[in-house]
């Protein structure tokens, strides 16, 4: 029982990470019908930037080792902010170099170009930080908290809390605010949105900035639980993409649901048979695609004739 509860907690933490990145996929897909296939590499770059930020703030230089007392909450928060801003700018650069030239041309050039953008970012990061993993202790310490007998890391609680708060904020912005409604109008019909006086290109750039920022946020949240490295992004991005497909790529709430669902499945199955984790996740994906191709909460898009 305790073990299951424990798995639920770590599954929720993992799920929160997948959900944030999946939401990033949803945002660019709904506004441009494209995805950033370099999202994982951006996530990793954002994370190593943030870890270096903590090191510099702690006066350790670029290649030091972080002790738990080096990672104070404010250093962590400042680095997080830096990472989110840097990634937002990278998202804008990605849009102008790898997405915009190919929008509306048909074909899948943007798949290759966003993948390529990610690889360029990854290799640049590799040249700066090297291949080894960087350890970053949690700003909340490592004292296990007991909930119902199960041990939970403070960082896991932080991950769940932060991802849920960010998602609720985004959800509220999209549904209740003027700018959110404008973004939804752009997602639905760019010409009609233009006729409302909405600056469509600006909204699209904003979507890419937010999407990349979410990846940066996810990366630094998970780093104290796993580690930070230039290679950490691919598996997270792949799971997040799966989460978006399972939940419904065109539905933000579906992407969040898919993220948590995948995290829980991965964690629960891992408890039982670690080697069945990936198998069960991808079987779940295939099952969902067969039964409901548009995803759990996705809506079938009627193509205009």
């Amino acid at each position, binding site marked *: 029982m305790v073990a299951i509860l424990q798995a639920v907690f770590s599954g929720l933490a993992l799920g929160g990470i997948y959900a944030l990145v999946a939401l990033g996929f949803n945002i660019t897909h709904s506004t441009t019908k494209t995805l950033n296939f370099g999202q994982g590499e951006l996530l990793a770059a954002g994370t190593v930037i943030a870890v270096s930020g903590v090191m510099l703030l702690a006066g350790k230089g670029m290649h030091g080792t972080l002790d738990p007392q080096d990672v104070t909450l404010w250093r962590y928060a400042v680095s997080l902010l830096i990472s989110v801003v840097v990634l937002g700018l990278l998202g804008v650069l990605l849009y102008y170099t790898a997405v915009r030239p190919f929008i509306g041309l048909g074909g899948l050039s943007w798949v290759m170009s966003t993948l390529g953008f990610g690889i360029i970012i990854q290799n640049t990061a590799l040249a700066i930080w090297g291949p080894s993993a960087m350890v970053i202790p949690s700003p909340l310490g490592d004292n296990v908290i007991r909930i119902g007998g199960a041990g939970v890391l403070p960082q896991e609680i932080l991950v769940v809390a932060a991802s849920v708060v960010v998602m609720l904020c985004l959800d509220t912005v999209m549904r209740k605010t003027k700018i959110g409604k404008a973004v*939804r*109008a752009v997602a639905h019909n760019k010409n*009609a*949105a*233009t*006729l409302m006086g909405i600056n*469509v290109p600006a909204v699209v750039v904003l979507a890419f900035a937010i999407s990349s920022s979410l990846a940066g946020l996810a990366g630094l949240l998970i780093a104290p639980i796993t580690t930070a490295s230039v290679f950490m992004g691919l598996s997270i991005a792949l799971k997040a993409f799966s989460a978006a497909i399972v939940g419904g790529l065109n539905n933000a709430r579906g992407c969040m649901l898919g993220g948590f669902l995948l995290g829980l499945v991965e964690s629960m199955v891992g408890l039982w048979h670690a080697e069945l984790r990936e198998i069960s996740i991808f079987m779940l994906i295939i099952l969902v695609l067969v039964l409901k191709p548009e995803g759990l909460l996705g809506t079938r898009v009627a193509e205009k004739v």
Partner: protein
Amino acid sequence: MADIPTLRIEALQVRYGAVEALKGVSIEVHAGEVVTMIGGNGAGKSTLMKAISGLEGAAAGRVMFEGRDITRMPGHQRVALGIAQCPEGRQIFPDQTVRDNLMLGAYHRAASAAQIAADLEAQFAVFPLLRERLHQSAGTMSGGEQQMLAIARALMSRPKLLLLDEPSLGLAPLMVKDIFGVIRQLKQRGITLLLVEQMANQALAVADRGYVLETGNIIMQGGARELRRDPRIRAAYLGEH
């Protein structure tokens, strides 16, 4: 001011690749006028509308609004100048409520909440059913209701020029009658209107002047009454042989 037309289009050409959709169109719409553009399928009517609202770029020629050259101005900025287009096929935002659709019409305005609320009320006076449907998803309404919403949404921008692109398209006859009733009301309020229609008879009945567009060229123009009496128009567009 009186001699500067609200809209003046000079020798406008629009191309889709190798296809020339407009081959040098010149028209004028003056303040307070209702002008209709009639013509068959593929004549270039919708292309002309899009070129005015900025959804389509011009290959040559000029689009002037109140004496200002806006040929290269992005579409979203033209809305702020006072050009509102109610597009062909309505194109409301079906996943948002009727109210949110109307509010998106006023998106660019920096008006006070009270002013916007007053404008909403003004729309309800013309379109009473929108008040009943205010919190309903726009996509759940009938085609005619959606057309009413699309017109009201365009009016929420307080346009100096309203472009109506085929408002009667795909609507039941009774609904078409309602829509033309609304257009008459807008005319009485002094709203400057450019109306593109396939229903030439009704369009000419409500308009002050008309143009006839055929394969990208204006082939005829004049007062609506004269055009309605013209035997060539009667034969080609009013279904008389």
